[in-house]
């Protein structure tokens, strides 16, 4: 097949054979990877600026307003536009697939990816056009500081974020409505039974019964373990969306009053209290839903790759409940440098409860590794490689954060590049995304009806470039943090030149890896197939791999 023909038609992808659930999943995946490219370019611009005067970029990128606008939208595009989008798409496919029930609503799933896409674009436009740059932390009263930012920029930004949160609520509703639908295998289950299983109480009771010598509480839990993880993680997704939305509304009210010529007193809001509220919500992303979703994804991938039962399943179920409770109580580790924060909160929430994340994540790592180990010998498939890459990512990133969640260490590491590079970027780029790539390789034949991947060689090049680049960028950035480089500061004189050059080289590897991955996907589905994904599905089925009579019971499209 010629290159042009391959580019247009793909390998053997037929978009007309896809059902509604497959199409809506792929739409979000496409948008997610486009946003990923944008976020990688933004990241590279910032890396290049930090190199100093020798960087080849036009001078405007080093201008504070421009630089911090990029820094403001970088996490919005990365976390919401790309990661949320990809995770939500995967889970809206997986929950029907694993529960053998149809998705509650395809229309709602379309609403989700559209809202997240439009919202992310609006937030990006607010920063690009009006240079609205209070950063994602939105520390009060900076987002309402109309001396530094234009009101219109702020309003567009907040509307963008609000749309993302509306999309998030759509996802949450769709997931729970699907889980609680009493059709198919759950026809005879009560809401109570599904709730008990969703919160992992059956796993805890099973453990208790085992310890006390009684027969198991539940031999066949109502929900599969990965669905339990999605169920619990989505609790945090909901709480986080409520916090971000209400904080956004607060900023919006101040901006609207300002625009009307009657500015409100920003001093009426206590900055430290606001910080506590906002970090409580924001931390539910980093220390809540991400860790829970990731643990669930590891368990799913380990069982799918090995074809065997998960090792210590009841412990895993109980640990997911513990993770949920832990995630509600750890936000003070973000406030260890705030001298007004009560010392007991720093000690209990910031240090001790946070340390439990080492236990819960370590447990997930252990269970996944043992499940794989018991099934050896295994073929080193792409999905297994990426899963191991994901384990490496969290194996590096979680202890990096636990180390800083300490009153002594925080005093010399807070707001440095250590936390954002050695922890956040390694957790997201290596830990989370490699787990998601693993899921993508597992789901690829299911979602695309066995479409042949264009090149396994390119898949391998992507893997190694991405792994080495991701770990390298995080490592060199982290070292700069140890040398005192701040994370939310502009360095234009090349103060940390050597480490930033090395980080930029590794960042380029990540960017090139993304381009190779995208090329491989486009060559697999073809331009026509890519467009076809966004055309309405002829087959309205909202499930995959179940009998048509089950589908018809709760079909909403």
């Amino acid at each position, binding site marked *: 097949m010629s290159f042009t023909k391959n580019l247009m038609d793909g390998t053997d992808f037929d978009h007309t054979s896809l059902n509604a659930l497959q199409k809506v999943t792929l739409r979000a995946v496409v948008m997610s990877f486009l946003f990923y490219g944008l976020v990688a370019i933004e990241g590279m611009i910032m890396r290049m600026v930090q190199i100093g005067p020798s960087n080849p970029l036009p001078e405007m990128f080093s201008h504070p307003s421009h630089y*911090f606008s990029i820094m403001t939208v970088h996490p919005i595009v990365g976390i919401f536009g790309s990661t949320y989008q990809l995770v939500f798409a995967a889970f809206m496919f997986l929950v029907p697939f694993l529960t053998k029930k149809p998705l509650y609503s395809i229309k709602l799933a379309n609403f989700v990816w559209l809202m997240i896409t439009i919202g992310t674009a609006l937030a990006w436009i607010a920063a690009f056009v009006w240079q609205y740059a209070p950063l994602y932390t939105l520390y009060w009263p900076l987002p309402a500081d109309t001396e*530094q930012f234009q009101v219109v920029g702020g309003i567009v930004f907040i509307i963008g974020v609000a749309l993302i949160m509306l999309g998030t609520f759509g996802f949450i509703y769709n997931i729970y409505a699907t889980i609680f639908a009493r059709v198919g295998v759950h026809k005879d289950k009560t809401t109570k039974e599904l709730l008990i299983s969703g919160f992992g109480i059956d796993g805890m009771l099973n453990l208790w019964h085992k310890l006390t010598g009684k027969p198991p509480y539940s031999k066949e839990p109502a929900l599969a373990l990965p669905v339990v993880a999605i169920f619990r993680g989505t609790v945090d997704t909901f709480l986080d969306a409520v916090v971000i939305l209400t904080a956004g509304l607060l900023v919006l009210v101040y901006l609207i009053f300002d625009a009307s010529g009657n500015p409100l007193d920003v001093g009426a809001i206590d900055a430290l209290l606001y910080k506590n509220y906002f970090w409580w919500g924001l931390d539910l992303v980093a220390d809540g839903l991400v860790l829970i979703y990731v643990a669930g994804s590891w368990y799913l991938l380990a069982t799918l790759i090995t074809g065997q039962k998960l090792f210590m399943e009841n412990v895993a179920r109980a640990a997911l409940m513990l993770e949920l409770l832990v995630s509600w109580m750890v936000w003070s580790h973000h406030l260890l*440098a705030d001298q007004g924060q009560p010392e007991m909160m720093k000690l209990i929430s910031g240090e001790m409860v946070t340390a439990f994340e080492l*236990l819960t994540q370590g447990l997930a790592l252990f269970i996944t*590794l043992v499940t794989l180990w018991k099934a050896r010998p295994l073929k*080193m498939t792409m999905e297994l490689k990426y899963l191991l890459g994901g384990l490496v990512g969290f194996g*590096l990133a979680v202890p990096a954060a636990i180390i800083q969640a300490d009153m002594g260490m925080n005093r010399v590491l807070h*707001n440095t590049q250590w936390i954002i590079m050695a922890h956040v970027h390694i957790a997201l780029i290596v830990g989370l995304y490699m787990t998601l790539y693993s899921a993508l390789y597992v789901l690829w034949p299911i979602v695309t009806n066995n479409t042949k991947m264009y090149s396994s060689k390119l898949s391998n090049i992507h893997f190694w470039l991405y792994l080495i680049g991701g770990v390298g960028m995080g490592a060199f950035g982290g070292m700069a943090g140890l040398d*005192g480089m701040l994370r939310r500061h502009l360095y*234009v004189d090349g103060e940390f030149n050597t480490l930033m050059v090395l980080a930029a080289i590794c960042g380029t590897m990540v960017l090139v890896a993304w381009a190779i991955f995208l090329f491989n996907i486009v060559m697999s589905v073809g331009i026509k197939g890519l467009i076809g994904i966004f055309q309405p599905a002829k087959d309205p089925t909202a499930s995959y791999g179940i009998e048509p009579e089950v589908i018809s019971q709760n079909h909403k499209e």
Partner: protein
Amino acid sequence: MTFSNSAELLSFHWVAYTIYAILIISVIAWFGYNLTQKERVKSIVRIPFYTYIGFLVAGGVGHHIFTYNAIPWVSQDITRHEIKPDATYKFEVEKHKWIGMPKKVTVECGQTIEFDVRSRDLVYGFGLFRQDGSMVMQMQVNPGTDVNGILDPNDILWTFNHNGVFDVMSTEYSGPREYDEEGHSKMYVKNWLEVVGCKEEGGKK
């Protein structure tokens, strides 16, 4: 084991974390390799499940116990309101400018200094940095007032055990106006604090 300043701590941390990073990458790589092998590989060490869990708990909690005992500023920070400092420097910040900040501060070796920085508008940071750019210490500077309209304190105690000349920077982003058109911070104060009278290896002469 005690760290007398942040430079020692950061060097220790650099080495310890690098060893850990190499170890975890090697373990997973070894694991991945052996997953594909037909022959039953002999484990290098056999770690029972509960030992592993105990290790994680001990690591998480023990880390804080270690730092509490090895890093002197932890207990000093917790009990700072009961400690009488050798000197106090109180100043404010507004519109990205330090207000009432002394032009230069000289500290005798071993002195414990209180810095109390109050913000009139935005969230800032207060950090001291060595000439090589590494951080001595930092804190957040939150705005706010009490019921009488007096600005909320953001106070930290610091004991200086090594000679040096330190710069001041805001360690928290407070909007693009912190910077001039060329991108230099207006809140950066070169050679603000000097510590004198220490031995070369640290500590009073």
